[in-house]
């Protein structure tokens, strides 16, 4: 039995480190193992160095560091299975949530928003990141890893952007635009040109690229062009201004017919309240108290904003909508026996604070017109 000196043990220990074994516990294992082999198999008067160099080659195929690589691989393998399970479970979960959410949304039942938010959140924050982590391990080349990363990022951004869009949260359009831009101008070109070079992946790459491009194109078809959006805003603002003019001239005509404003004080109060709310909404939307006729040039039009955005800063204005609703009910009740009276019939949702600004403005103008018409009828019947 060969007896190893401390110097020789140090030599082996250094050599193991030099050969790329960095894990301390693995170094200890291998050192003891090599020493055992030498002690058992080398004769007392054998050549240590020569024997060591030939003995160590039995430990590996290419180099010693492969033992450490394999160890790390096995240690992460355990996580791999757990991650795979979580990925599959989260995929099934988000699919289920989205399915229920969409059904609830179309049936206009409560709970749709919660389901959709949870579904997209699980999809984009659990499923997609895990999919990426697992896919990256399978990829050999750095380029493929980058492609997987960019693709996942765009996918997460896209799904979150669409979620923001349906929830009317800010930043949705920007997120979708950036995601589509990444897919079309970064991901697709790299993916396509990397894939078609390899004969094995050529067909798959072409098919996937076409599908992806078609998907992006279909999304873009659904999106209204900026020009179309402007046209729409201009039309609505014009519509609002026309209504305003009609209300004003009706009021002037009425004032000419009768100089007694006390004939319908409650009607005037309603009209005034409508004006106050309209002024608030117009100012919040455009920054101006009144919209000019040349609004198109100034870009101060009424867009598609939900009034909800503005109430949070001015709860007293939101309160006015409720007051108005009550005033209208009282008004209808008070005049129901008046000859030729036409009650202001409003759907329960007409003054809903969750409506869009432009819908509310329209409804408020119509309330004012109906009040004015009742006053005219009253005058005519006298």
């Amino acid at each position: 039995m060969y007896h190893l000196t401390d110097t020789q043990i140090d030599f082996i220990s250094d050599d193991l480190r030099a050969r790329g074994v960095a894990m301390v516990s693995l170094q200890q294992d291998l050192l003891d193992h090599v020493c055992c082999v030498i002690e058992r198999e080398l004769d007392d008067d054998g050549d240590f160095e020569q024997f060591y160099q030939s003995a160590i080659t039995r430990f590996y195929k290419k180099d010693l560091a492969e033992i450490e690589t394999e160890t790390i691989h096995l240690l992460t393998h355990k996580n791999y299975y757990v991650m795979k399970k979580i990925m599959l479970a989260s995929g099934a979960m988000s699919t289920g949530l989205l399915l229920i959410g969409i059904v609830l949304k179309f049936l206009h039942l409560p709970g749709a928003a919660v389901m959709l938010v949870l579904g997209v959140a699980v999809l984009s924050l659990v499923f997609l990141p895990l999919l990426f982590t697992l896919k990256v391990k399978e990829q050999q080349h750095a380029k493929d890893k980058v492609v997987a990363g960019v693709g996942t990022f765009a996918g997460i951004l896209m799904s979150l952007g669409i979620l923001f869009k349906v929830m009317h949260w800010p930043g949705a359009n920007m997120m979708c635009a950036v995601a589509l831009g990444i897919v079309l101008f970064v991901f697709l070109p790299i993916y396509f040109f990397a894939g078609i070079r390899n004969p094995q992946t050529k067909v798959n790459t072409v098919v996937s690229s076409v599908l992806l491009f078609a998907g992006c194109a279909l999304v873009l078809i659904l999106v209204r062009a900026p020009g179309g959006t402007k046209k729409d805003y201009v039309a609505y603002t014009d519509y609002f201004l026309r209504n305003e003019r009609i209300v004003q001239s009706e009021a002037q005509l009425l004032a000419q017919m009768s100089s007694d404003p006390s004939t319908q004080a409650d009607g005037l109060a309603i009209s005034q309240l409508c004006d106050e709310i309209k002024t608030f909404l117009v100012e919040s939307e455009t920054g101006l108290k009144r919209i000019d006729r040349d609004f198109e040039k100034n870009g101060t039009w009424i867009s598609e904003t939900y009034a909800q955005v503005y109430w949070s800063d001015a709860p007293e204005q939101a309160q006015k909508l409720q007051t108005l609703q009550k005033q209208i009910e009282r008004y209808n009740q008070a005049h129901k026996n008046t000859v030729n009276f036409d009650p202001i019939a409003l759907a329960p949702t007409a003054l809903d604070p969750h409506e869009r600004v432009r819908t509310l403005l329209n409804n408020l103008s119509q309330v004012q017109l109906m009040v004015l018409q009742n006053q005219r009828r009253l005058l005519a019947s006298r």
Partner: protein
Amino acid sequence: MIYSSELIKGTLKTIVLKQLEGQRMYGYEITQRVKELTGNKIQITEGALYPTLHALEADGLVTTETEFIGKRIRKYYSLSPKGKTKIEEKVSELADFIQTMQFLLDIKPAMGQ
């Protein structure tokens, strides 16, 4: 005949756990014991043994104790309570697998069995 490492790979955890049943052992000892018991047919390589031992330790199936042998450290591996219960499961799984293989590959039992 020495079995190929591909063949041994899937059963290595079971083999190692079984050796540790009732006694603590260090790496070299495990390879020697398996070699002796199988008449040199199964030679566990260092490249396969240590990653497996570390994985078993990470799974909590084996525990380690260290002892100084002169200048070097010797690590003794022994079964944890969890490892003890796992052996039976692993062995019966392997036995089942062997039966399936016998059927699948149409292996006739050797003479005298």
